[in-house]
């Protein structure tokens, strides 16, 4: 072997980051969202510590509103890999029955995900959390560090971020502070798909096209995944061949019409398409600085 391909370099870099983070923290955890980036991150983690299991649990901050297929996939994968999974559902949300229909997408996301995440991190006193975010996802993420320091209130302060030189990461923190670590920082969406293809990494079937019951709302196709979905008077779910480019809470995640039923067909479709990944998520739409604001508040 004389040189590494770009995917080999990316994988080796991610492994180095994972090991460094584990070596420099007391109680690490990996945030696991069941999406494809999480799948890749977990796959790389299995490699990083082989023949040991990853020396940290997975944490799924659940909203109870994910697609059913995601829960099935999650439980099966965790069992197959033999890793520990923690599921956290914000108890306040459970009690108050927070849902996207009555409370709107912003409140729903904020309370279940942002608040839920903080609760879970505090509850288990995790001092380091891996996330699958990539720098190419959004403009404000291009400047995110690989090791990102959060205050005891889990806030991100752009002024407190540390310069990262060579492969040297500074994970030191005061009591109460925590670190978010993004091993896939330098991967692009195409890299992720190529790697899934090359490594034959299992992903949730929702990424593949299949006939599914959907309703069209404001130009977005929403899948009727269970009977909690509130239909408008006269609204009839129609069976259409759709797939998902990004996964979240089913009432908040738009599907795209597609016939791509294989991985290569998905990649082909992605490369030929002209809309970017996060467009399917409702939260990005408010204003152009919105991700930055969310990040400051502790959203991943």
């Amino acid at each position, binding site marked *: *072997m*004389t*040189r*590494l*391909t*770009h*995917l*080999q*370099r*990316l994988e*080796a*870099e991610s*492994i*180095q980051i994972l*090991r*460094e983070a*584990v*070596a420099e923290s007391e109680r690490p955890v990996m945030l696991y969202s069941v999406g494809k980036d999480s799948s890749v991150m977990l796959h790389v983690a*299995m*490699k*990083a*510590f*082989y*023949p*040991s299991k990853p020396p940290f649990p997975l944490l799924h901050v659940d909203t109870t509103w994910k697609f059913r297929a995601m829960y099935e996939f999650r439980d099966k994968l965790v069992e197959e890999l033999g890793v520990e999974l923690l599921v956290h559902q914000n108890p306040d949300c459970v009690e108050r029955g927070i849902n996207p229909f009555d409370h709107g997408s912003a409140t729903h996301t904020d309370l279940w995900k942002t608040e839920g995440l903080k609760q879970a991190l505090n509850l288990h006193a995790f001092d380091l959390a891996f996330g699958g975010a990539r720098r*190419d996802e959004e*403009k*404000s*993420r*291009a*400047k995110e560090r690989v090791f990102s320091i959060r205050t005891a209130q889990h806030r991100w302060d752009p002024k*407190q971020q540390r*310069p*990262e*030189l*060579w*492969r*040297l990461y*500074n994970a*030191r923190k*005061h009591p109460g502070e925590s670190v978010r670590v993004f091993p896939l*920082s*330098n991967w*692009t969406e*195409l890299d992720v798909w*190529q790697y899934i*293809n090359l490594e034959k990494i299992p992903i949730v079937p929702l990424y593949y096209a299949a006939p599914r019951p959907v309703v069209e709302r404001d130009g977005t196709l929403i899948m009727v995944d269970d009977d909690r979905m509130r239909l408008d008077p006269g609204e009839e779910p129609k069976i259409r061949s759709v797939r998902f480019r990004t996964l979240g809470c089913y009432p908040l995640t738009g599907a795209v019409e597609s016939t791509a039923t294989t991985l*290569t*067909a998905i*990649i*082909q479709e992605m*490369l*030929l398409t*002209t*809309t*970017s990944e996060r*467009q399917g998520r409702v939260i990005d739409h408010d204003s*152009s*600085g919105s991700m*930055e604001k969310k990040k400051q508040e502790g959203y991943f």
Partner: protein
Amino acid sequence: MSHVSNDLLADDIEAYLALHENKSMLRFITCGSVDDGKSTLIGRLLYDSKLVFEDHLAALESDSKKFGTQAGDLDFALLVDGLAAEREQGITIDVAYRFFSTEHRKFIVADTPGHEQYTRNMVTGASTADLAVILIDARKGVLTQTRRHSYIVSLLGIRHVVVAVNKLDLVDYSKEVFDTIEAEYRGFAADIGLSDVVCIPISALRGDNITGASPQTPWYAGPTLIGHLETIEIADDLHVGPLRLPVQWVNRPNLDFRGFSGQIVRGSVRPGDRVRIVPSGLESTVERIVTDDGDLEEAIAGQSITLTLSDEVDVSRGDVIAAAGDPPRVADQFECHLVWMSEAPMLPGRPYLLKLGTRTVGATVGHPKYKVNVNTLEHTATRTLELNEIGVCNLTLDRQVPFDPYVENRDMGGFILIDRFTNQTVGAGLLHFALRRADNVHWQAVEVDKDARARLNSQRPAVVWFTGLSGAGKSTIANLVERTLHQLGFHTYLLDGDNVRHGLNKDLGFTDADRVENIRRVAEVARILVDAGVIVLASFISPFRAERELARRLIGEGQFFEVHVDVPLEVAEARDRKGLYAKARRGELVHFTGIDSPYEPPASPEIRLDASGTVPAVESAGLVVEYLRQCGVLAPPQEPEAATDPS
């Protein structure tokens, strides 16, 4: 994405993927100022490789109207200027990483601002780059900042440079302008040791010579920017050097497996290779190269692997597994280049943490030999380094570390400095060479040791360190404590701030740097006295936590007792026995603690004394003596353990 055969994508996705899975990767940095059109160039690279998606493009169109500088035309710069605050200011203020891809390569671009005070960001971006693109505005030619960027590129060891002479459309695509700039740049580049330089005439705004040869520059026969970036061979001599594997993590899934995980930063390794563990110097043989994809026959620089060895040798995180025949040197004193990255200036003598490879150790920096004016490359004398300054200094570590000079290997010679209290990364440095000084000063082994002297004195040596504002009453209380201990028959010595400054430290003033040195010397003297078996009472304002911590580490936990003589500033100032506060307020005294120099109170001192005036000094002194008694300091020393028979 252009530069990919779109036909292949549509017709034969498998072939397309095979092509793209085997791409190489190039990391480069772009250097230039806001006005050189750097963001525009990067926006253009993303746009031309069709990585700008439709919804981003829609946002770009609306943003161009709102913030754009191109009179409503697409402003590519807006594609890359990320944080909202920056967008309003119209400048980028941090390092941003961008990604694009062509048929042959994946690119990671470090986008760093060229603004004067942001040396820090450029050094950060350059530390991981294989190549640098230096932008020059064709209308302005080689500027001071061009020299600055080139110097940093050369300092950080980037061997390949592309000079993109931009805005050629604004000088009528003039060959003469381009030739003049190229000649001037080459002359300068040779002086600072940059040898692989390629100059390309471009217009980022119009797209000339970015992906395709421009019809506007028929006189230019060289490569386009993308063409050059796609094909340049980055000499990967990393694989051919001797093996270096800094150990990140010891892999122990069960009692039968003990592996050492890390990323190879130089050379290659095969099972059967003889290796040396540094710094211990133990040798062994590589047994297996373990990965989740199966054992490997060979691994090369850049790969993250796990090694097992044929012997049960002791290996920990921070060690380097190296080629037995050509291991790295080990040292604890170095000369280095240091780039300062913090608002708070570097303080010679202050204890910092240093991270080199996977090892973190204590470090102090000596007085800089000089700092480099990055604009003129002149060397000037200095006592410290401020934010964004680069200097050459000596470095002393608290233990030996394996290293290679930075010019030989970035990962074995590049380090960061971390502030022990803020935990911020405050500096970055490049090791040049080990200083011989340390090699020749051997620790003199002595037979009568601390315990023996303590036994003869029938006491347990310790340091009681009084800290607090001027006028808090430190010396008064310390004096009373010493008197009591003396009466009880203990051997004591009182080190007092004012007295020490009349002799040992009379060459020192009151700047932050001198205060650090003052306390360093006092701590060393206190250590010698403790070694001699004495109970030391030290009474110093000692305003900085870092130096008090240095003293604590030097003396050793269990023998160091920090006493905070706590008084509100108003109370101390109202007392003002020596009239110093009044002088400081009048501006006749500068660097006065509490007035124009900070006091950092101890977070958790062993003893906190209320010195606001409600508790008499005698009572406070009594509290200190009682505390020492309870800690066992005033108990008789332990008897020596029975000597083992050496036969």
